[in-house]
């Protein structure tokens, strides 16, 4: 066996390359641990948590069993379907289950943790790399929720692909010479990754723009000489974006119509929105930032859970911590002599700032979904935190450790809460009750119907196709026409409502108004199941 003597080590890569190699080991180990913990958690939180997650699983089933080839998420032709194809492969290997459904986000999430370790190392040294990987592995509640559930085109994929773009930008910007043919593979890879990411989720543009600005800031003196390489990178774009291009070319460029719709000011229920209203600002600061920074759980906000559930002192401290980090970054940028030249930390700040700015032209009003669209901002927090701690407390190990520890405590608190709170609906209990009653065709709200389809492996066909069966839904949630048609042809469909919502009560009143007899059961203490109607209830508006 050949071994290297001390003298031979001079032959090993030195400087940044050596550090980079060392930077991989600890993050790899941490990523592996995070993967194992999440695997366990994904088995515990069963069945599927939401309609969104169920649709990803149903798409994967249809890809595998029925030969469907969806290009986009059902009903949302701007979210790429890649996740469902990967999941279909996992289903083929391991069978259909909620835990297997979550393997794909787990895979991308591990990549995100790994890249955070690498980027942290590049930003502020090996210790920062390890700390960033740890903070990414136990991310903010927003990261934990969005990145660990299968959401078909968001969450984990967005974080991984976006962070990959940041890493590529760093590599590219580091070239201390004109870009030439040696860099062409990297440039082409950049183009492919960007195109592929844009197909998966348009929000990745926040990362793309940050990466582009960073590279431009670093290499603007070499811009002319680099142009051929950039042109090659541009060629990679359509390659990665090919699925979206193929579909859109034959479907009236509908994905772009959607983007134009939300940018055009008509996406809000209240009509056109000015760029910045006080209500919009209030929701960005009060709900968006609070959840994105990790002080509140996104889901708790939507469920209107009282503030007492957040850790009171830590929540306030978090906002202060990141505000201070931003201030330190600004001060350091202004102080540097070569302030025109981008620094790696700029990448992180650019993502955060661009993500916030992206809300200004959007038409989402105060009633629109906001928190999940701050995922890129939340995703770069581990890097922001370690950069700030290294910058201010590098030699005070105890304080440095305390900072990391408090961030982990905050995130761990929410992680434990999400694991113990379990799933949104006890869909399995509902499925088995319906099957025992011989009810296999069901109208229900979006958050009940599709999880029911997945939990029953489509022995029960449920859909939110009935007019306003989902009384609280903002948009039409009927996502899969095949189910709709099956229900329209069904002899004796049942209607299922969340017992806490008014819709079930309204439905009962409407049935009474039409003189329709029915039976109603409370199932699993959460559902109202109407069935056995004396006349067809489909015409009954809710």
């Amino acid at each position, binding site marked *: 066996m050949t071994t290297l003597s001390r003298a031979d080590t001079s032959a090993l890569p030195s400087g940044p390359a050596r550090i980079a190699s060392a930077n991989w080991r600890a993050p790899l180990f941490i990523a592996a641990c995070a993967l194992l913990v999440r695997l366990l958690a994904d088995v515990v939180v069963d069945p599927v948590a939401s309609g969104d997650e169920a649709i990803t699983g149903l798409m994967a089933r249809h890809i595998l069993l029925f030969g469907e080839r969806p290009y986009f998420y059902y009903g949302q032709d701007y979210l790429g379907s890649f996740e469902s194809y990967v999941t279909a492969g996992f289903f083929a290997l391991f069978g259909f289950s909620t835990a297997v459904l979550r393997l794909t986000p787990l895979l991308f999430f591990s990549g995100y943790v790994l890249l955070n370790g690498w980027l942290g190392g590049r930003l502020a040294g090996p210790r920062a790399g390890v700390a960033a990987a740890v903070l990414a592995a136990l991310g903010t509640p927003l990261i934990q929720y969005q990145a660990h559930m299968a959401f078909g085109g968001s969450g984990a994929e967005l974080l991984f692909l976006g962070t990959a773009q940041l890493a590529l930008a760093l590599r590219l910007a580091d070239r201390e010479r004109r870009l030439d043919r040696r860099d062409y593979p990297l440039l*082409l890879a950049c183009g492919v990754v960007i195109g592929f990411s844009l197909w998966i989720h348009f929000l990745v543009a926040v990362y793309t723009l940050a990466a582009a600005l960073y590279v431009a800031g670093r290499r603007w003196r070499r811009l002319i000489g680099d142009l051929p390489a950039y042109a090659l990178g541009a060629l990679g774009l359509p390659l990665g974006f090919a699925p979206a291009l*193929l579909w859109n070319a034959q479907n009236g460029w509908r994905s772009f119509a959607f983007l134009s719709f939300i940018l055009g000011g008509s996406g809000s229920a209240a009509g056109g929105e000015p760029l910045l209203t006080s209500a919009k600002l209030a929701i960005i600061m009060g709900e968006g930032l609070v959840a994105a920074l990790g002080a509140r759980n996104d889901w708790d906000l939507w469920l209107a859970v009282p503030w007492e559930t957040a850790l009171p002192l830590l929540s306030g401290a978090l906002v202060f911590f990141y505000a201070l980090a931003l201030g330190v970054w600004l001060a350091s940028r202004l102080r540097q002599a070569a302030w025109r030249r981008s620094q790696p930390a700029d990448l992180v700040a650019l993502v955060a700032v661009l993500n916030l700015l992206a809300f200004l032209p959007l038409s989402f009003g105060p009633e629109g979904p906001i928190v999940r669209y701050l995922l890129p901002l939340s995703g770069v927090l581990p890097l922001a935190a370690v950069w700030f701690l290294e910058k201010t407390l590098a030699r005070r190990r105890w304080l440095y450790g305390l900072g990391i520890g408090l961030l982990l405590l905050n995130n761990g608190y929410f992680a434990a809460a999400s694991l113990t709170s379990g799933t949104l609906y006890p869909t399995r209990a509902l499925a088995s009750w319906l099957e025992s009653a*011989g009810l296999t065709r069901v109208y229900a709200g979006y958050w009940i119907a599709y999880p029911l389809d997945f939990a029953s492996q489509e022995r029960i066909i449920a859909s939110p196709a009935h007019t306003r069966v989902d009384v609280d839904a903002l948009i039409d949630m009927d996502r899969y026409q095949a189910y709709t048609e099956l229900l329209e042809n069904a002899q004796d469909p049942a209607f299922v409502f969340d017992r806490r919502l008014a819709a079930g009560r309204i439905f*009962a009143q409407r049935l009474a108004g039409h003189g*329709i007899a029915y039976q109603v059961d409370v199932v699993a203490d959460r559902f*109202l199941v109407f069935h056995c109607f004396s006349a067809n209830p489909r015409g009954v508006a809710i």
Partner: protein
Amino acid sequence: MHLAALLWRLFLPLTAIFGLLVSLPGPLPALNAAGVPLGQVILSSSRFGQPLPKAPALSCVAPKPQRALSVQFDDAILLAGYDLTIATPVGSFAVLNLYWQAGAPPSADYKVFVHVLDAERKVIAQDDGYPVNGASHTLGWQAGQVVRDAHFIDLEPDLAPGSYQIEVGLYQEGSGKRLGLLTEMPTVSPDAPLLPDPIQLLPPVARPKWTSH
């Protein structure tokens, strides 16, 4: 391994595999009028999961009540039991299924009343109506027939959480005369037996506000 090489090796094959996947089966998914992709959808029930049962209408068979009773009223009407979700938050509604059985065809058309009573025996919530949402009048009941009769009881948000008793009974709409109670049961008002299980009113719960992507 350098990052560029890693990404290069990871993404290009993935893209190639995806391209192959989507191009293999041929045509693009068909779309319905609303633009939802149908793929290669064949609309038959056996396409999804296991073959489905042939609509045995099992759900219409009245199941056994969660709480069996034998409370006899005049005119051969028996209250055979009930289903009640005991714990219910205020600001929502409770669902009570009563199981009526006629010993013989009743001689009159009766309404059913359900009262929720506080500690001072005052009615704080109620539901009155002909059985089964008005779709099953007692005059049409056959001997031996079991009628499952659902009642929705609205619980105002300002009610105090706690334990409340429920009384039920039958009466004639015109005269308001209640049907006599023959079985000895605890009562608060005449001919209105108290159900053995009180209902537990819980504090109000937050109303979920759902959205998708």
